[in-house]
């Protein structure tokens, strides 16, 4: 830590005879400390605890101040001195981060050292005003037919990826990142509470596929202080926001928000906030809504597209956190473990997935063919379940045709990882619906 700065500060405090800007630790908790003194502190000011730890003001009480710790290098003891740094708490970022795995304090985690040219990043800005927003109508292509054609994503959209463990959620996000090559998109992959092995794998995968040159991986692990993990997505979005204001198109993947909710619950319960539903604090919705509302098409041309990921248990997307996040996002891609087991990959549940923007972010031909395919597919999926036991020969020709056609439509949606398709290839797949084909599938 900038020791000279602190000494300077202490010196200036002494000169001013201001005894209050130095406080004393009176209680030490695992990730907060309670401090007496500091009577002219500001909310969210950065503080230094006896050069052993760093944190920010999280609560100002009548007689004491609560400090949230983000970095602890040495054991803190009651009686340790606490210096206020007379500035708002901010994180650090370097423009050299492209192609690296970083944290929110300016460290290159693969190289194990700090970047040189760091700039400060606020942990949170004011909400983006409604009138500064433009309409979301430019396409964001993932290269996956089932998404680009049926449940399209636009630049500035927040599209949730939700499903059980091992259903390919992260894979869809990685596919989307890899498909942004040469599309003038900056990608931020935010890994929350993933294992170090997983993050390294993802990093190698992105490097191998040539996506590293436009991607930054921002990681926070469970063996760190929970405040760091909690802050990481906010800082990532602050970085994205400043890029957007410079007219960049940015993609932010947050993997995953359920873990973020759990970390926030842990912090809230530790600070004795009254718990609400499922023991989450009552502002858990706001914690995620203010984060995801950063996703937008800005009127100046830049955009932030967000793909948050949420992990569910036994395919239940109606639990508290999932429904909260669904109600914030502009649509959801629901993954089904049943389809995944059957080898129908990507394992999208086409009935439950939704894109609220739909055709308005698609080109004319994708929109026309896409809505045709979606309607036929949904009708097929419903009819298939009902008529499963019926004798196909006894059905009317109309129904027989529909069942046959539906099966072909579904088959053509199968697509393996890292095999992106262009729009032309997707349109070619479903050309038969409009002009017929030699197998009589029309």
């Amino acid at each position, binding site marked *: 830590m900038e020791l000279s700065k602190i000494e300077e500060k202490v010196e200036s405090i002494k000169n001013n005879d201001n005894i209050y800007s130095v406080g004393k630790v009176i209680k030490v908790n695992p990730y907060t400390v309670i401090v007496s003194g500091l*009577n*002219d502190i*500001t*909310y*969210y000011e950065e503080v230094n605890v006896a050069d052993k730890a760093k944190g920010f003001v999280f609560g*100002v*009480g009548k007689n004491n101040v609560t400090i949230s710790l983000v970095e602890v290098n040495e054991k803190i003891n009651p009686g340790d001195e606490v210096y206020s740094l007379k500035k*708002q708490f901010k994180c650090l970022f370097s423009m050299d981060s492209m192609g690296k795995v970083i944290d929110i304090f300016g460290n290159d985690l693969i190289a194990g050292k700090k970047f040189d040219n760091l700039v400060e990043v606020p942990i*949170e800005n*004011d*909400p*983006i*005003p*409604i*009138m500064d*927003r*433009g*309409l979301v109508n430019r396409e964001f292509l993932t290269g996956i037919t089932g998404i680009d054609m049926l449940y399209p994503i636009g630049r500035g959209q927040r599209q949730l990826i939700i499903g059980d463990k091992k259903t390919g959620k992260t894979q869809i996000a990685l596919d989307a990142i890899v498909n942004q090559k040469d599309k003038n998109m900056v990608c931020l992959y935010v890994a929350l509470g993933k294992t170090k092995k997983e993050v390294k794998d993802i990093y190698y995968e992105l490097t191998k596929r040539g996506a590293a040159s436009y991607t930054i991986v921002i990681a926070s692990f469970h063996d760190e202080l929970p405040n760091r993990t909690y802050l990481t997505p906010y800082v990532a979005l602050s970085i994205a926001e400043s890029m957007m204001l410079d007219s960049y198109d940015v993609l932010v993947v947050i993997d995953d928000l359920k873990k973020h909710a759990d970390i926030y619950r842990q912090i809230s319960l530790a600070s004795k906030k*009254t*718990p*609400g*539903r499922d023991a989450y*604090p*009552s*502002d858990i*919705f*706001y914690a995620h*809504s*203010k984060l995801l*509302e*950063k996703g*937008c098409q800005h009127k100046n041309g830049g955009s932030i597209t967000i793909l948050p990921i949420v992990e569910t248990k036994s395919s239940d997307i*109606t639990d*508290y956190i999932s*429904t*909260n996040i*669904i*109600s*914030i*996002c*502009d649509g959801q891609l629901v993954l089904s473990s049943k389809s995944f087991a059957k080898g129908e990959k990507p394992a999208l549940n086409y*009935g*439950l997935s*939704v894109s*609220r*923007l*739909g*055709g308005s972010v698609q080109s004319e031909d994708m929109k026309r063919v896409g*809505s045709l395919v*979606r*309607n036929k597919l*949904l*009708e097929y999926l*419903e009819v298939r379940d*009902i008529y499963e*036991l*019926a*004798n196909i020969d*006894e059905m*009317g020709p109309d129904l027989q045709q529909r069942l046959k056609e539906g099966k072909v439509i579904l088959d053509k949606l199968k697509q393996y990882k890292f095999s992106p398709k262009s729009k032309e290839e997707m349109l070619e797949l479903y050309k038969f619906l409009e002009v017929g084909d030699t197998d009589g599938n029309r």
Partner: protein
Amino acid sequence: MEIGKIITIGDISVEIILSSNDIKIGDILEVKGNDRYVFEVVEINNISATCISLYSTRGIQKGSVVVKKSDGLEIEYSDKILGRVFNSYGEVIDGLPFESEKKVKVSNDTVTLKDVKVETEPLWTGIKVIDFFAPLQKGFKMGLLGGAGVGKTVLIKELIHNIYEGSNSNAVFVGAGERSREGKELYEDMKKSNLLDKMTMVFGQMGDNPVSRSKSVETGLRMAEYLRDEKGQDVLIFIDNIYRFIQARAEISTDLKELLIENGYPSNMSGQISSIEERINSTDEGSITSFQAIYIPADDLTDDAVQTVMSYMDGQIVLDRKVAELGLYPAIDVFRSTSKLVDVEKIGERHFNLVERVLAYLTRYEELEEIIAVLGIEELSEEDKNVFHRSRKLRNYFSQPMFVAEAYTNIKGEFVDIKDVLDDVENILNGKYDDVDESKFRYIGKYNG
């Protein structure tokens, strides 16, 4: 005038040690020399006052001097509200010049029992499934229930489009705790369809702090009250979403360290909801018909907040994920959607009987689905086969192309007269269309043979 000094700071609230007695609940205070930090007084005792902050509290210094700014939040009370967009605190946010004519306080009393008027005139929406199962009257409060992502906001937009176009009354749209993107889209849509200058909009969206999200509803109501009381109109107000109001109040209560009831709601929740709902009433001056979207947390219909809001409603339109899964929009659950108007004395015998027959058919259909899953369709009796096929036609028939969903469905919207709906439903039930394939009833207006 100096009121006191800040001694505690939290995410939403601050406490002020008082140096003056000239302060009351509802007053607006600000940090001296910094209009970024503004507070509303919610509690006063002998030596201190607790306030909630209108904006972020980050950066507020302990010991800051606080001065009084005004007697309470104010909002424009003239025709100048029309065509404009406000934030929850009554400030114009559409970036265009604004000159105030007259301002009043945002807070207001509820309508007394003496002044409440019960209206009797029907109000058709042109949306088949609503007019058939849950018809409206002027002055009705309709709850719009639905979990996340089943098409609630599209329905609201369609209602604005359909009802609004047929009436000369002005409307108020309140965006409370919903998506900013949708707010901006609605604004652009309204501008494009030349409806904007006939309505006013208030936004306290989900990126805003809870004080803004809860105040947006009160601010919007004051505008509806202006249109009703000063202009004598039959006003429409859309609140998207009333659940977010109580959700925001719960966040504030938590920050104020109040004791909460189960699921983290404030203990005076029914009082808080009543102070809003009892303002939305018709009087001799005019009527207020309201559509209130109600978000259902965790798909849990028995949620206390949802139940409390529901008790004020004259009817409900329930959107269902299962119907949405079938690709049938508006994804309305016809078994749970109804209104007080579904009464043989109010909508007439024919309409009433048709509703009963359709519900009987669809109930039997659900039972048959289970039988078919085991035995197959061929094992059904002739009568049940008829029920099965006709029910599927009915279900498809109650889907409808919507004007505002044209970008999504690629089909042009339709306004359907209730008389046509009754004829079509009767014909399907009586077997007149038994030879027509069920897919012919999907996404149509009235049936044209």
